């Protein structure tokens, strides 16, 4: 069975100006991620992994090339179009969890899905159960451990059943055992929801647990 391509990146370029000098971070990256596929994006520091992730998420604009998410070209979208895309088609998980501190775990979990109008109570219940968050729903993020926070972040990102889950060093702040546990959960839920996973990681050990590895070197896929 062939799986549909959810992310198609072609000839992506991006450079920054720093201290009056133009630094090319991405020099023509090509990449695809299929539904239910988990891809690890690896590379040394400064290779452009996080930049690529931010461009795919529509958080920043590329200088050249194309990103198509579910057939939609991100470059053709304006600011609100990109925001809408993030809301409904993407799930984002960061190293620092970036939960909303003023909302309880329950409110954090449903925040994006309800905002996107894609709230599915059954899926929410399943997420809560599989992430083991049932007894933490009334707590605030700062009352949770790092592993618990990251589980909430994954739940929030997947609650709207996105096309693609983007994770930037999601286990960077966790110990090895917790990292393994969280990642296993994430992979399982990605498969259950049918979305793709693109994960930036430094860990070759964790990268090896995913379906495919893409290594960035000097701004291009090595």
């Amino acid at each position, binding site marked *: 069975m062939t799986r549909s391509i959810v992310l198609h990146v072609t000839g992506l370029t991006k450079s920054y100006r720093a201290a009056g000098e133009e630094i090319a971070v991405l020099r023509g990256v090509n990449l695809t991620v299929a539904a239910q596929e988990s891809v690890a994006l690896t590379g040394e520091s400064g290779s452009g992994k*996080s930049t690529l992730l*931010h461009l795919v*998420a529509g*958080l*920043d*604009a590329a200088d050249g090339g194309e990103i198509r998410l579910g057939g939609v070209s991100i470059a053709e979208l304006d*600011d*609100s179009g990109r*925001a*809408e*895309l*993030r*809301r*409904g088609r*993407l799930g*984002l998980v*960061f*190293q*620092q969890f*970036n*939960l*909303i*501190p*003023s*909302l309880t775990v329950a*409110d954090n979990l*449903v*925040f*994006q899905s*309800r*905002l*996107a109008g894609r709230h599915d109570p059954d899926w929410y219940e399943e997420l809560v159960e599989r992430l083991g968050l049932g007894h933490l729903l009334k707590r*605030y993020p*700062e*009352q949770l451990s790092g592993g618990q926070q990251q589980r909430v972040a994954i739940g*929030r990102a997947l609650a709207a059943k996105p096309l693609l889950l983007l994770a*930037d060093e999601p286990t960077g702040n966790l110990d090895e055992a917790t990292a393994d546990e969280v990642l296993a959960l994430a992979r399982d839920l990605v498969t259950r929801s049918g979305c793709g996973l693109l994960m930036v990681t430094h860990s070759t050990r964790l990268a090896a647990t995913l379906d495919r590895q893409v290594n960035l070197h000097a701004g291009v896929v090595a």
Partner: protein
Amino acid sequence: MQLATLLIGLVAATALWSGVQALNQQARNAYDRAAATFGGARTAMLVSRDGASLPQQLFVDLRRAGWPVSPVLEGRLQIEGRSFALLGIEPVTLPAEVGNAPSVGRSGMVSFMTPPGEMLVAPETLADLKLAEGARARANGGALLPPLRVQSQLAPGVLVVDIGIAQTILGMPGQITRLMVGKAAGKHASLASVAGDRLHLIEPDADTDLERLTDSFHLNLTAFGLLSFLVGLFIVNSAIGLAFEQRLPVLRTLRACGVSARMLNAVLVAELVSLALVAGLIGLVCGYYIASALLPDVAASLRGLYGAQIPGQLSLRPEWWLAGIAISVIGALAAAATSLTKALRLPLLAAAQPRAWHQAQRRWLTYQSALALAAFAAGGGLLWFGDSLMSGFAVLAALLLGAALILPAVLEAVLSLGQRFASRPLTVWFWADSRQQLSGLSLALMALLLALAVNVGVATMVESFSRTFLVWLDGRLAADIYVSAANDEQAMEIKAWLRERPEVAAILPGGRADTQIAGAPVEVLGLPDHATYRDNWPLLQSAGNVWSRLRPGDAALVSEQLARRLKLSVGDRIEMPAPGGSWPLQVIGIYADYGNPKGQITVNFAALTRRFPGIPLTRMGLRVAPPEVPALVADLREKFALGERNVVDQATMKAESKRIFNRTFAVTAALNAFTLGVAGIALLTSLLTLANSRLPQLAPLWAVGITRRRLAVIELLKTMSVALITTLFALPLGLLVAWCLLAIVNVKAFGWRLPFHVFPMDLVWLVGVALAAALAAAALPVLRLARMQPASLIRIFANER
């Protein structure tokens, strides 16, 4: 940003406090000048027990008996329609402790005492008279006065001449009004053995009459200055708190590198004091300009309310500059106290996880609410047991402090309620995040609450006063024309002429005398029994049929402030000192007499002239049909060569009274606006300093699909909503402040109680102003957020807090 905020707060606090202090000092210097002038209240005095003038022979007898006395004759003199205090002194016997004596004596004594003599005046008085030094003014009666000579120590509005010349000018030959008493060199005979019981010794008093009368005015100014100072300190506290939080990692590193907590604190204090010195100096310069700008209105208020003459040129003592710098440093240290204590107790190893904000917030809200309840309880106790102006202000302070402290709890309750009823995710976040922001904004919101409540309170008081005053003015100024003749002879001529004029429906003679009751000055007003007064006089309480009962001369109407001071009610009896002996009177009514610092007693005019035979009978009111007024005024001025001030129609007099009234409250309005402005700045600086620390809260929302523009709008709405809740809370609080001002402070300060009115349109206007201030304060941070580059937000996910 924190540095700018800190400096703005300190400059604003110091400027407003120092400005108000400069005004108070300027006025107090003027009172001192007035008091020290030729034996004011700073010198012991002998005065007549019945308030009448004394024969000069008494002075001779007392000197012979060894009393170091010097005679003084006081009266009022009109020049070009303006009234001046004329003071006749005898320079040879002036006591040494009367500071100005030497400059009169020695070389100038001969020219001062021998005809035509000299008339000593302050530079301001010379400017008022529009004459050069050496020129001779002419009194309204036509008498040529001695050549003018400037003496800078004199109080404005006072003319000093030799006592012999004063007796001639005032038409009181051989009479004196009081005797200054110097320090006795040896023993002297008892006072009773020389003068019987005619004289009363008044010891030198640290507080002059003027100081006592104007105390409440200055207390009001000080209260405003203090409020502005505190609002400014809110900004400082907020800036220092945030700067400290941001420096926490550096401070920890320094401590870890071996810097002792004491050394760290010493450096922080030194840094703060240096900044406070710079801000203090800038604040003082700003304070000087604020005081200069407000001085004309303050001077006009003090002149209008109390007859006090304040020079228009600001002169400041070195203490003012030193006090300003000190207040800036003390204020900065007070505002930084919490942060400095934290630095002193800073643990080397900080807990890694962020503060549990909602638990900390709950604890903080509980403490503050407990303190607020304690403040309310203290206020209630003061209201119940207190009976002084200070306790009135303390009630106000407790009320405002309690309200400011309980504000975060009120906001928390309202925001929680909002959150409970919200269902959409963004709305839920809106309320939840507003709650979380509360601790960072609460100081600025407290400042806004205080400024708004005081604005509502003072505006309501002024408006209530204005409404009552206008009605009262209609009652008090019931005659159509007011005439003041140069002397009794001219008054007789005018009356005779007026009787021939068919358009004059009534001539209402009036008279005034001065006396003292219970040691305080009292004005005695004589009114004829006429329908003009029966229909219009602003009686607050009366026994009924009062005007007929006044006629025999054994009853009186008492002004509200005198009734309160002497605890008089209708039916009580008073003994009024009069030249012919004590005058027993029954109180048959109490009337409003707003704006008069002295107590006033109104009696029948004929009875007054019988009991006080020496009073001038130069004043009269006329009843004339309104269309005939301008022609009659013109005829009177032409026929009797009367100046503009001597013949005034009712409309002009009312307009003048309203102008004085409005000017009286111009200072209050200006300080009100300043305080609101400072509160606006407090809100702006809090929002600006919060803006950076808000990014970690906002970036995740942007990441999950909310545009920067929408986030900016939500941030704006959040600020506006907490500002609106604060404003709505400020309205009833402000009305309570107004009630305190009207029912407690005004009664204690001025002696009158005004009816309490609510002015809904003014409240609506103030809500608009508050929201406009919040909008202005929120605009910059919100615009910055709306235009923020994605890179700045992305950095949040990379670097983290």
